[in-house]
């Protein structure tokens, strides 16, 4: 299996408008790659959650949006990097229903359920790197 990166764009996340721009780009690319409406909504929403996390908890950062191709199958991957305080209890944050910002606390756990591949790396003082990948359905 070979995974090919067709395009890669780095976008800053410094304000709420940037969150909107990131998810608009993700939605446009998903549609351009021929994702169905469910997959498009899923990857767009997951990107929205993680972009907002980078903004609210990570004090801003950047998103790298990549179009992928794996043996003819189209995919989309978005990597979020912030320089925030990091997540102290990653397990608890991923379990859902836990929030440090008086919100629903479902962002991370929800985003994970919406995509095909989910990867997160965080520790106090190191910031957070989260990466999601969604593949176009074959059937």
């Amino acid at each position, binding site marked *: 299996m070979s995974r090919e990166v067709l395009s890669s764009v780095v976008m800053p996340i410094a304000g*709420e408008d940037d969150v909107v721009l990131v998810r608009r780009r993700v*939605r446009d690319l998903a549609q351009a790659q021929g994702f169905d*409406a*469910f997959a498009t909504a899923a990857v767009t929403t997951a990107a929205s959650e993680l972009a*907002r996390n980078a903004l609210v908890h990570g004090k801003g950062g950047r998103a790298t949006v990549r179009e992928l191709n794996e043996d003819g199958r189209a995919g989309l991957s978005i990597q979020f990097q912030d320089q925030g305080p990091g997540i102290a209890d990653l397990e608890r944050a991923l379990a859902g229903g836990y929030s440090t910002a008086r919100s629903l606390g*479902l*962002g991370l756990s929800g985003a994970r*359920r919406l995509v095909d591949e989910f990867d997160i790396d965080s520790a106090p003082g190191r910031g957070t790197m989260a990466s999601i990948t969604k593949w176009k359905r074959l059937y």
Partner: protein
Amino acid sequence: MNRETRTPLKLDDAELRSRRAYFEINDEDLERLASLRAFGQTHLDDIIESFYRFILEHHESRVFFADDTSVQRVKRLQKEYFLGLFSGVLDVRYVENRLRVGATHERIGMPLRIYLGAYALYLRLLLVKLGEEYEPSLAGMHFRSVQKLVYFDMSLAVDTYIASYVETLGRHQAAIRELSTPCIRVYDRVLLLPLVGTIDTQRAQQIMETVLVRVADEQARVVIVDIAGVPVVDTKVADHLLKTTAALRLIGAESILTGISPHVARTIVQLGVDISAMYTKSRLADGIELALSIVGKRITQVAP
């Protein structure tokens, strides 16, 4: 600060240093420019006269100079600008002065291309004078220093234009936000809130305030929130909707959520958001029917 001197930009020492480095303006350049001050003084009137002859010959630039008095006034300012090139000083005050010049031109509505064209004209006029006065290799070195500073000034001018456009854009966004939260009375004590576009924190707060005030004013019992026009419903949007529902309940009104598309429904479930606190209906028409039943009314078929 009055309107005349207001600039939307600030450049601190560190930024100034890095910009200077990028334009490769070193102390040698500044010394060279300072040594050209006498040259600048000598040709000042000549260059400024040629400059305005050109500007007044061209319709697109002439329109910005109403009458002879204003031409005389800007000529005086232009001379100050011109001599500033040969001050040999490039500090925060210099930058502030240049930013102010840019902001003034932006404010009178001069397009950036006209403004940049004038800088190019400056360089052409200076090149001719330098060529007349100095032997070619020296003229070339002098010109290079002048060019660096003029391009530096141009970058500041472009920045003031962009900053001003961004500011305008922000004002328009605020205006659109205000316009985009209509709260419609569909029947006695029944309100409809059609949401369109992105719901960010600011807008969510404004929506909640608008609808709470309207519900209190009209003593409404039901608010139908239609989200057919909201492209992405993430946990933040869901959170806002739930908080609005809770606040509405406190003042005695129910909320009905309508316009949920199949893929939004599935996304909400996958996110794990529980919106059972709200009544939900897929279509707006069903929402209206439910709202009417809550206020004790019913839509019935009448004989034709």
